[in-house]
């Protein structure tokens, strides 16, 4: 079994999805924690300080390359698997009742992931690109907090962000325990704990993310 065989085999592809997925899961913890600084209600001082650090520290910038690498691999591999899995049943059933044997979100990782990809394009366009332009044009220090405040005064944007968070919730809810199952971890004693941890993780991360646009929109923070 060469490396190429390993990573192009069905299980190898699943490992790639699981590893990159778990990596993105850890990234979201960092992302949500830093963003949660807006709730300190100090006019964004702490948050902006963190944002400045994240965009200027060279170690973070280096890690960011890894993040984008992982993200791109997760997206491309996911889309390829979706396509391949779809073609393994050339003739569809006339009558099928998948709801009798599985949960809708476990069957919808492809569509949820695609929604997240669309969300991500919008999200990077809103925050990442602006930050980078400010970084390289070198004038005014970039005030990300003010930018969030402006953006999240729009009904449409807040609605889209909440929709994005809902898609993220179901993706994580299935993805966390699915990644560990793929890595071969299935145990009478630990699997229920893993499932609980995954649910807790998805609930906490998504609640934090959802509260951000809402907090600005309803002026819970000034």
């Amino acid at each position, binding site marked *: *079994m060469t490396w190429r065989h390993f990573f192009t085999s069905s299980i190898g*592809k*699943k*490992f790639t999805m699981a590893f990159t997925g778990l990596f993105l899961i850890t990234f979201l913890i960092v992302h949500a924690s830093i963003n949660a600084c807006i709730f300190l209600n100090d006019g964004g001082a702490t948050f902006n300080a963190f944002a400045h650090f994240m965009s200027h520290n060279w170690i973070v910038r280096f890690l960011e390359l890894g993040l984008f690498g992982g993200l791109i691999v997760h997206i491309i591999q996911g889309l390829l698997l979706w396509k391949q899995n779809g073609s393994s049943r050339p003739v569809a059933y*006339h009558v099928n009742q998948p709801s009798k*044997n599985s949960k809708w979100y476990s*069957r919808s990782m492809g569509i949820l992931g695609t929604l997240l990809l669309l969300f991500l394009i919008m999200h990077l366009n809103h925050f990442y690109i602006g930050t980078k332009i400010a970084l390289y044009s070198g004038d005014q220090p970039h005030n990300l907090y003010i930018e969030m405040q402006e953006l999240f005064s729009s009904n449409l944007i807040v609605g889209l962000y909440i929709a994005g968070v809902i898609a993220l919730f179901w993706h994580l809810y299935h993805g966390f325990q699915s990644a560990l*199952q793929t890595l071969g*971890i299935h145990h009478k004693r630990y699997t229920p704990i893993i499932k609980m941890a995954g649910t807790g993780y998805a609930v906490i991360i998504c609640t934090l993310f959802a509260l951000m646009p809402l907090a600005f929109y309803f002026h819970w923070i000034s």
Partner: protein
Amino acid sequence: MEHYLMNLTLKVWRQKNNQAKGKLETYQVKDISSEMSFLEMFDVLNEQLIVEGKEPIAFDHDCREGICGMCSMYINGQAHGPWQQNTTCQLHMRAFKDGDTIVVEPWRSGAFPVVKDLVVDRSSFDRIIQAGGFISVNTGNAVDANAMPIDKKDADNAFMAAACIGCGACVATCKNGSAMLFVGAKVSQLALLPQGAPERESRVLNMVAQMDKEGFGNCTNTYACEAECPKGISVANIARLNSEFLLAGLSTEEK
């Protein structure tokens, strides 16, 4: 359970051969006993078709007692019909009521081509077994079964995995057409026992390679297979397949 008779409308997939385009045909059956098995109801229908001078419906069956795995029918959108942990031959007509319409289709998977009507070719499973689902033993007298001590837990898990009857309901059910529950069971039943140790690594690598070659899809852990498996094979076997593959794949010396 009270006995009753019922009249039913059946919509059955008819397909002349592998190349032909199939379609659902509608049939009526009368006075079906609630104590008949689903296959006996099909026998009644087939006799009726023969009397009418029509071609009977081809369907697979052998033991009719839930152990051979032949009776592949996708009934009203579920593999082997509405009952849990059950094969088609063990599905009884009391699962239905008078006036019901029942849709019966063959397993649908690119790796299980339709031979005729409801009969599919599952030899892709045989080729996966040939690739590694065996152990090597010396010829001569059979060894005393109890000569080799085996942990009770491992013996039980191996036995539960060995309950797989190779029916293919897992593939038929899976939205990805994945065969990983079947392959997981077949790898596990040998990997858990000392007799399976010599070929442990090559077995999982070769069986997975063959599974991929046959065109089965990739598992996304929906666990629909476990829910529909007539023998209740656990998805723990898929996790074991994954970890066996990971360890074997990483420890080979090929570059």
